[in-house]
């Protein structure tokens, strides 16, 4: 009888041993970036599913030509203009499907004309009929301390394009700086600087684009926009309206805000 016990004992010991050598081995998805990441799993079983992502491509033009900082362009009036800074914050991104809006939570970006590809992060896979965002920063984040955002965050004071009104608490939603030919003869030299700093919640603007697009499962969706910087100056006489810090010239700030809103379209 003892022989049988001995035999089973050894078997059990072997089982325990093999268990022990493999540790607490629970199988599952071990990739922390996967939707179905299992914290308890020690061994990957190939079941990982990944979230879909969305990328926004933005092409910057000036009345049909490719835009670049420091280059001279011609306004409809015939005056030459050159820009050194043309940027704005974007927030409150939403994907639209019919009457349903799906917000992209906590996504903030800053448009700069030198950047074409904006990674908007993870989104639900699906088909969509529209794409919306606000130019500016929503009121829940606009009054936050910029030094509390992580370094790489669009709203962080660590950004080299950080645009924030220190004394008025809040971001400069849209910042345009450059110079224009203000000569009576329009001699083509961009001699006169202009500065448009637009902010405060009054001047938040929504961009609402109707566009059909699909975000594939475990894949990347795309939206393609165009920013026509020439349109930023529609209806503005740059020879006399060359300065707004919003509070000192609110009508001009409003025109700039409305123009930028209209200047963004599908590509």
């Amino acid at each position, binding site marked *: 009888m003892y022989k049988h016990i001995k035999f089973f004992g050894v078997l059990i010991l072997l089982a325990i041993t093999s268990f022990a050598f493999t540790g*607490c081995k629970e199988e599952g998805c071990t990739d922390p970036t996967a939707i179905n990441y299992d914290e308890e799993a020690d061994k990957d079983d190939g079941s990982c599913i990944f979230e879909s992502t969305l990328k926004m491509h933005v092409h910057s033009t000036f009345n049909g030509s490719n835009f670049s900082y420091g280059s001279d362009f011609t306004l409809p009036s015939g005056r030459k203009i050159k820009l050194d800074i043309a940027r704005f914050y974007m927030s409150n991104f939403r994907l639209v499907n019919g009457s349903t809006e799906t917000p992209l939570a906590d996504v903030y970006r800053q448009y700069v004309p030198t950047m074409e590809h904006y990674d908007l992060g993870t989104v639900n896979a699906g088909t969509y009929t529209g794409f919306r965002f606000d130019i500016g920063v929503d009121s829940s984040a606009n009054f936050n301390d910029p030094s509390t955002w992580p370094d790489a965050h669009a709203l962080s004071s660590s950004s080299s394009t950080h645009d924030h009104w220190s004394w008025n608490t809040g971001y400069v939603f849209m910042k345009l700086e450059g110079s224009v030919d203000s000569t009576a003869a329009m001699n083509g030299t961009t001699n006169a600087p202009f500065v448009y700093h637009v902010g405060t919640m009054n001047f938040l603007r929504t961009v609402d684009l109707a566009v059909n697009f699909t975000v594939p499962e475990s894949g990347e969706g795309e939206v393609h926009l165009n920013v026509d910087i020439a349109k930023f100056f529609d209806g503005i006489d740059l020879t006399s309206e060359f300065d707004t810090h919003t509070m000192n010239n609110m009508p001009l700030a409003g025109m700039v805000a409305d123009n930028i809103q209209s200047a963004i379209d599908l590509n």
Partner: protein
Amino acid sequence: MHPRARQPLHLWFPFKGFLQQGLLCFFVLALAGCVPEPPEPSAGSSSYRIELPPGIPDMPMPEDFRMTSQTVGLGRQLFFDPVLSRDSSISCGSCHHQEIAFADFTRFSEGAQGRMGFRNAPGLFNLAWHDFYNKDGGTATIELQMLVPITDHAEMDFSLREAAERLNRHPKYPQAFDAAFGSQEVTPFTLTRALSAFERSLISFNAPFDRYRYYGETDALTASQVRGKDLFYSSRLKCGNCHSNFDLRQDSFENNGLYAFYADSGRARVTWQAEDHGKFKVPSLRNVALTPPYMHDGSLASLSDVIDHYASGGAQHPNQSPFVSGFSISPQEKADLLNFMEALTDESFLSNPEYQP
């Protein structure tokens, strides 16, 4: 009788000997699961202690960092270091001088490249109790307020990002930040929190007025000063209606009728509301005798001029506070009131070595 020999546990399978049974126990434990994690070591820095007189509300403490002697000491170093200005010429201490309660000697202050500011620099003390900062109240926290002098073109003309980068290249600061915050990397967050820790540490509650009112020392004020105090809080003068709290100020914006039209619109600069035109944050009168000239624009040279202004009833601006309605005051009363203003000076604050570079 034989002593019972030590024997291994009798288990139901034939494992003899301690080695085998020890191994078995090991395997069973390994099966049972993970060994528990050791506990996280707790943050080691000591808390910073503030001594307050009885009757003063507790000092509001920062919520996103710990005020410690290390963070305060680092902030003190930074406060007096021109490294935080673009051209390395201006520190906070360039315009905030301890000997006059961290106010400035001049009407307006000079910043980088000789550029002038446009408002009279305030004294700095008891800052944690304020609801908002700057005369137009556009900044809600100490950490947000400091962005103004650091980034303003006419003050330090710099940015948090560049200041942090510069400190990261400094031979001594990374070490000091490591000791205070546990990381050598200087970031906008740790830079602002170090400065705010020092600013919060500037506590002033030891004027003769405090000793009289909060410590119960009835001989701390002279008879003249007591009369002046009574006048200050009287319904005839109504100074105490706006300069009302333990700091002789309150968290509101008021128009004191200094002008019929204000070049500096004050609170309206932030809110753009007509009813805020010409309103400014009510300042504390602590140490006021040390800080001429007076008013948001330093346009009144002396405290005597200030009393005369209020006695006159002001310029009748539409937003003027109803408490500024003019009063009669005798020369003796004026002298008493001025003596009371002197009683608001906290000599120990002016020379406290904790607040020096």
